[in-house]
């Protein structure tokens, strides 16, 4: 496949034949995928096929029983999540999970308060986020729990951006959002891509995914079933119908 030849020799993130269980349930049956530095890769599939679990496994939130995960060629399997965050993996979970009782500013600080960040850099990061999401700037001293769903999503993404990660794992960012916000999400993905941040995007919104990503993987029943460049297919492609159709 032509898409595969474009993957750089050293992928940023590489998932190799990963099997994951929830208790006795075998959720991931040998998932393998790759994300190159700066690439936007999509992960499509119906509900329950294991897309979120794949992200959680990469982030160390769910232990895998077989296989491995590599970051920049280094094995990161089994490392605790806080180390992975420091190594450059940002995570935006499916239900946003912002800290409801912390203010917007404090939420951002959970990622911003790191070693090696100068005052100038801090200000620059904050400015970037407040420019792109002015609403967050306005509400910076409000508790996270008082924000609307869309605003919380913005906060969740911004929070991950504070880590200046090499890759952001985005789990269904447009779920439950109004169309206006969906396009804002699309824009932020493009901005991040232009800055060289890789993104692994789990989504149900096929048009958005195909437009924003360079490559897509399609999962079914806990394994990757199809893999191609985003440009090779469109919404009406039989592959889409097969794995995502009702």
């Amino acid at each position, binding site marked *: 496949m032509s898409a595969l030849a474009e993957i750089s020799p050293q992928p940023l993130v590489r998932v190799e034949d990963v099997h994951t269980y929830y208790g006795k349930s075998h959720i991931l049956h040998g998932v393998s995928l790759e994300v190159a530095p700066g690439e936007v890769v999509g992960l499509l599939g119906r509900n329950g096929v294991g897309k979120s679990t794949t992200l959680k496994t990469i982030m160390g*939130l769910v232990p895998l029983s077989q296989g491995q995960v590599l970051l920049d060629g280094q094995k990161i399997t089994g490392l605790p999540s*806080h180390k992975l*965050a420091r190594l450059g993996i940002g995570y935006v979970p499916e239900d946003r*999970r912002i*800290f409801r009782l*912390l203010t917007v500013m404090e939420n951002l600080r*959970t990622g911003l308060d790191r070693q090696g960040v100068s005052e100038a850099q801090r200000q620059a990061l904050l400015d970037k986020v407040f420019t792109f999401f002015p609403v967050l700037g306005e509400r910076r001293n409000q508790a996270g729990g008082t924000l609307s769903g869309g605003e919380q999503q913005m906060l969740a993404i911004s929070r991950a951006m504070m*880590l200046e990660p090499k890759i952001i794992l985005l789990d269904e960012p447009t779920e439950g959002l109004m169309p206006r916000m969906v396009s804002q999400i699309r824009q932020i993905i493009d901005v991040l891509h232009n800055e060289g941040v890789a993104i692994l995007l789990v989504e149900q919104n096929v048009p958005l995914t195909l437009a924003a990503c360079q490559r897509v993987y399609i999962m079914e029943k806990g394994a990757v079933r199809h893999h191609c460049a985003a440009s090779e297919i469109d919404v009406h492609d039989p592959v889409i119908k097969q794995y995502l159709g009702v």
Partner: protein
Amino acid sequence: MDAVVHFFQNFPYELLLIQTINGIVTGMILALVASGLTLIFGIMDVVNFAHGELFMLGAYVGIIVISSTGNFWLALVLSSLIVGILGAAIQVTTLRPLLGRDPLNTILATFGVSLILQNFALWQFGPVSRKIDQPVTTHFQLFYLQYPWYRILIAVLSAAMIGGLYAFLKYGKFGIWIRATTQDRVMAQAMGIPVPLVHTGVFALGAAMAAASGVLFGPLGSINHTMGLDWVLKAFIVVVVGGMGNLGGSILAAIFISLLEAYASIWVDPSQAVIVSFVVLILTLLFRPTGLFATPK
């Protein structure tokens, strides 16, 4: 009518006021102890059975420091530091391996720790009670009593420490780390917060607060290896009445219960006055099990 007049004439107003002050003083120390317990419980879901023993050890370390340096304030600082480190060691060796297991295991484990600490104290210091001398021996005239300034000092210091804790939690990087970890441990870790370290740090902080309370309490009563149980028991009552995991609530509850006990001591023997706290607990469990002073955090 005469009886009513007689009642009001003989009502011990002065004693009541004195006991109010005494109640607040003990209440503040209890609040300091309970805050440490609440902090640990709120963040790690750990009921620290050994909290009373940390209080007790704090007092003993205080005695040792005072007997070699004669300085009460140095004792306060050193004791908090040493017991804080001990607390960190306990958390790392005994509680970290139990992370993720049924929380009942942590009660048992901390119970085991309390056994060791209590008997260690008995072994090293013997069964005879000791005392710490007051650092400030001046008095002021309160009605017919010479009231020791030291007691007022304790109340103020305890309040200052609790205030300091509150500020620490609200502002500053570590405060944010602690609050984020309390709200969502998994997400806090995903944001790069070293949660295991936060847990150890909080336990150490709670231990240090218990130790400081022990040193402050020293001049007020006698110090022996069994004193921990009474304090941890009362602290537990305070935590339940105040609403588990509710810092503000436990402070109010501590003062409330101490005041009631102080008033009860006017009419009954102090060892029976403690029944007051039991009654408050029972009433709370009957009518407001989430806590008398429970407010949304």
